[in-house]
C-alpha cells in the first residue's frame, strides 16, 4: 500500500509536465480561430473571437489560468461542441474501454497458444510459420488491416457490419484490427520467455522426475514465463490507446480515439488537453497495476 501511494505521488510532476507539453503543442500547431471562421470572415471578426476565447493573453498567463482551472476540475469548454470538455471525454470512455478489452482478449487468445506452441516446437516449420506471422502482424499498419477486413468480411461476404458501435458483432472487426499488432508482440515475447524457462534446471528436474510433458509446459514453464508477459501487456496499454486513434477512425467507433483525432484536426484545445490528461493518468495507473500484479504471479517479489 505504501509503495502504491509513493508511486501515486510521483505521478504528480509527470502529469504537470504532460499538461505543459500538450498545452504548448496545441498552441504552436496552429490557430483554432482560422479553422472556426470561414475564409470570408473579416479581420475584425477574427480579432473579437480571439479576444473572447482568451488567445490574446500571453502564453504563461494562459497556462496559469488553465492550470488553476484544472485544479478545480475545470478542463474548459470544447469549441466544437460548446460543452464541457471533460464531460465529452468521460462520455467516450466506455466505448474505448470496450474496444481495448476486446482487443486484449483477441491478443491473449491468439498469442498464448501460439507463443507456447512455437517455443515447444522450436525451430520446426510450425515455429517458423508462427514467428513469421508475428513479424507480419507487427508490421501491418492497422488502418490497412482495418480497411482490408471491412472489404473482405463486411463488404464482400457481409458477415460483419461495416462500422459503428452496437452489439457484439460490431466489436469483432475493430477488435481484431487493434488486437493483431499486440498479439504479434506478445507471441514473440511468450516464445522467448518460454524458451528461456524451458532451458532451466528446474524444468530438467521436473522432466527427470518423469512428469508428463504437458504438465511441465503448462504448470512449470508457462507460469514462470508469464511474468515478463504481464509487463508487456501493461506497457501495451499505451500502444492500445495509440491504436484506438486509427482503429476508431476507420470503424467510425465513437470512442476517445476518434474524439481526439477530430479535436486535434480542429485544434479543439480543451478537448485535446482533457483527453491527453486522462490518457496519461490511464497509462500511469496501468503501469502501477502491472507492478502489483507481479506480486500476485510471483509471491517472491516484494516491494519495500
Amino acid at each position, binding site marked *: 500500500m505504501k509503495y502504491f501511494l509513493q508511486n501515486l505521488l510521483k505521478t504528480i510532476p509527470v502529469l504537470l509536465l504532460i499538461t505543459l507539453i500538450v498545452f504548448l503543442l496545441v498552441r504552436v*500547431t*496552429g*490557430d483554432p480561430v*482560422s*479553422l472556426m*471562421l*470561414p*475564409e*470570408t*470572415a*473579416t*479581420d475584425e*471578426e477574427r480579432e*473579437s*473571437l480571439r479576444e*473572447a*476565447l482568451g488567445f490574446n493573453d500571453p502564453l504563461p498567463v494562459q497556462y496559469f489560468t488553465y492550470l488553476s482551472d484544472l485544479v478545480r476540475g475545470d478542463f474548459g469548454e470544447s469549441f*466544437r*461542441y*460548446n*460543452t464541457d470538455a471533460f464531460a*465529452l471525454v468521460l462520455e*467516450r470512455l*466506455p466505448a474505448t*474501454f*470496450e474496444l481495448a*478489452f*476486446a482487443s*486484449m*482478449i483477441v491478443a*491473449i487468445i491468439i498469442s498464448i497458444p501460439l507463443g507456447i506452441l512455437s517455443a515447444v516446437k522450436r525451430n520446426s516449420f510450425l515455429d517458423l510459420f508462427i514467428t513469421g506471422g508475428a513479424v507480419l502482424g507487427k508490421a501491418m499498419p492497422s488502418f490497412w488491416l482495418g*480497411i482490408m477486413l*471491412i*472489404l473482405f468480411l463486411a*463488404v464482400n461476404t*457481409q458477415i460483419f*457490419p*461495416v*462500422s*459503428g*458501435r*452496437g*452489439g*457484439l458483432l*460490431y466489436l469483432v472487426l475493430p477488435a481484431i484490427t487493434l488486437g493483431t499488432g499486440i498479439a504479434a508482440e506478445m507471441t514473440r515475447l511468450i516464445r522467448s520467455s518460454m524458451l528461456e524457462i524451458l532451458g532451466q534446471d528446474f524444468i530438467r528436474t521436473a522432466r527427470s522426475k518423469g512428469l508428463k510433458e504437458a504438465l511441465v509446459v503448462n*504448470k512449470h514453464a508457462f*507460469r514462470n514465463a*508469464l511474468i515478463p508477459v504481464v509487463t508487456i501487456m501493461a506497457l501495451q496499454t499505451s500502444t492500445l490507446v495509440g491504436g484506438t486513434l486509427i482503429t476508431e*477512425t*476507420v*470503424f*467510425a467507433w*465513437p470512442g476517445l480515439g*476518434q*474524439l481526439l*483525432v*477530430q479535436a486535434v484536426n480542429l*485544434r479543439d484545445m480543451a478537448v485535446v488537453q482533457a483527453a491527453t490528461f486522462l490518457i496519461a493518468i490511464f497509462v500511469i495507473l496501468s503501469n502501477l497495476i502491472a507492478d502489483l500484479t507481479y506480486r*500476485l*504471479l510471483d509471491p517472491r517479489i516484494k516491494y519495500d
Partner: protein
Amino acid sequence: MKKKIFSLLLILILIVTGCSNSDKEGAVGEAPVEKSDSKTLVIANGTDLSSFDIHNHNTTSTEAVHVNMFNYLVKNGGEDGFLPDLAESWENVDDKTWSFKLKEGVKFHNGEDLTADDVKFTLERVAKDDTLLEYGSYKQIKEVVVLGDYEFQIITENPEPALLNRLSRLGSSILPKDYIETEGWDVFLEAPVGTGPYKFKEWKKDDRLTIEAYENYFGEPAKWEEVVFRSIPEDSTRVSELLTGGVDIAVNIPPTDLKRIESTEGVDILKSPTQRVMMLVARTGGDGPTADPLVREAIDLAIDKQAIVDSLLEGAGKVTRTRVTPGNVGANEDLYEKTLYDPERAKELLKEAGYADGLELSLSSPNGRYLKDKESVELIAAMLQEVGITVNLELLEWSSFNQKYQERSFGDLFYIGYGNSMFDASLALDRLKKEMAVGETDYDNPETESLLVTAESNMNLEERAEQYKKAQELIAEDRPQIYLYQLESLYGVNDRVSFEPRLDEMFYVDNITLK
C-alpha cells in the same frame, strides 16, 4: 495460480460483455437498416454535427441536419424567390425597416407557441453577442421590435437589400425563448427544441444523431418515421457502408471511388454544384509582374481548367469565369461554364508585357484543405511553365496558410476556394472592394468600386442585380481573381431512395423519398 489467471481472464470477458450488454437498447436502433418497407432513412456524413447552438457553428453539414428540426422565417427558393416559412408575409417598409407577420398556430416540439418574442430573442442574440461564430453575418440587424404576438419589425443599421438572404440561412432558425430562458442553454443543447418536421431523439456524439417525426408540425407531415445521420470520417468506410446498404446516402465520395460505385448494382453517384469556386488570387498593385494586366491575362489563358476538372476531379467541377454562380442573387450566367484557354496567345501576351525570356512568380496554396488542392496547383504550375512562367510553389498546411492569408503577406498569387452561404453577390465580391482589397489584390478599378458600393445598399433589387452583373464582367476582364472552376460534391445514393442534391448542400429529408 492457474485459477488466478483464469479468473482474471473471466473478469475481462465479463467487463467486455457487460459493456456490450449495457448498450443493447441502443443496439436495436443500430442494427443495419432494413430495406424495402423501412421508414428509416440513414445518411452518412463525414463529420459529426458540431452543436445545436445554431448561432455558434458555421459548418454546412451541421446546418444540413438542423434544417429538419428548425425553421427559418423565409425560405430561399432560388429562382422562385423567397418563400414563406415561419413568416406568412413580409414587407420592406423603408430602407432600414422590414415588417413581418408570423404564421399562427406554430408549435415548438415542447408544445410552446411560436411568437414574435421568440424571433426577437433569437435574432438579437446573434446580432449582439460578438463571441458567436455567426455574429458577423447578423450584426447588421439593429433591433427587432415586437408589435404583437405575431407581428414584428426588423430594423437594420444600414439599408440591407440582402436581409432575406441572411434570414434564410445558417444562424436564423428561430429558437424557443421561454424554454431556453427557464431551462438554460445547457439543457437546450442536450435536448434541443425547434419547430421543424422532425424532433430530437438521440445524439451519440461522433456516432449518430437520430431524429423522429414530429406529429404536430405546422406544414406537411413528416415522410419518415426516423432519420439517422451517421458520422463516418473515413472515406473508404463511408463508401463500404453505402455498398452494403448500411446507409442510404453517403456524402463526399472521393473521386477515386467513383467508378467502383458506378459499377456496383443498387447504388449510384449523384453530382451537384456547390457554392465553392476555386481561384488564383493575384496581386494587381505594387511593382510585381502580376501588376501588369497582360501577365494576369496570360496566366488565365495558360491554364487548361477543363483538363484539371477532367483529370484530377473526375469531372466533378464546372469551369467558370465568375465567382457568383447560378442560384445566387446577381449571378452573371454569361460568364458561367465559360473558360479561356489559349497557351499560344498567352506566350504572345507575355512577350508584349516584356517577358519574352520568361518570368518567375510565386504561388502559395494550402495543402489538404480543398479537394486535390496540392495536385491542382502542381498541375497549374506545370501548365504555366509551358508558356514560360516559372512558378515557385509554396504549399502550406491550412493554419499556416491562414496565418499568411490574414496577414495579407502572400506574394504574386495564391490559390483559394471561397464559399458563399449568403447566396448573394455582395458577400462573393466583398473582398474586391477597394478598402477590403488592400494588401491582398490591391484591386482598384473606380468603375467596379462604384458598382459594388452602390449595389451593396441599393434597395431596387433588379437594378442591384444588374450592377453586380456588370461588376463581374469588369472583374473577369481585370482578373484580380482568376477563376478556375466551381467544385461539385459527389453523393453516393442507394437506389431505393430518390434524392436531388441541393446547391446549398442541405438535406431536407422530406424531399428524399422511397422509390
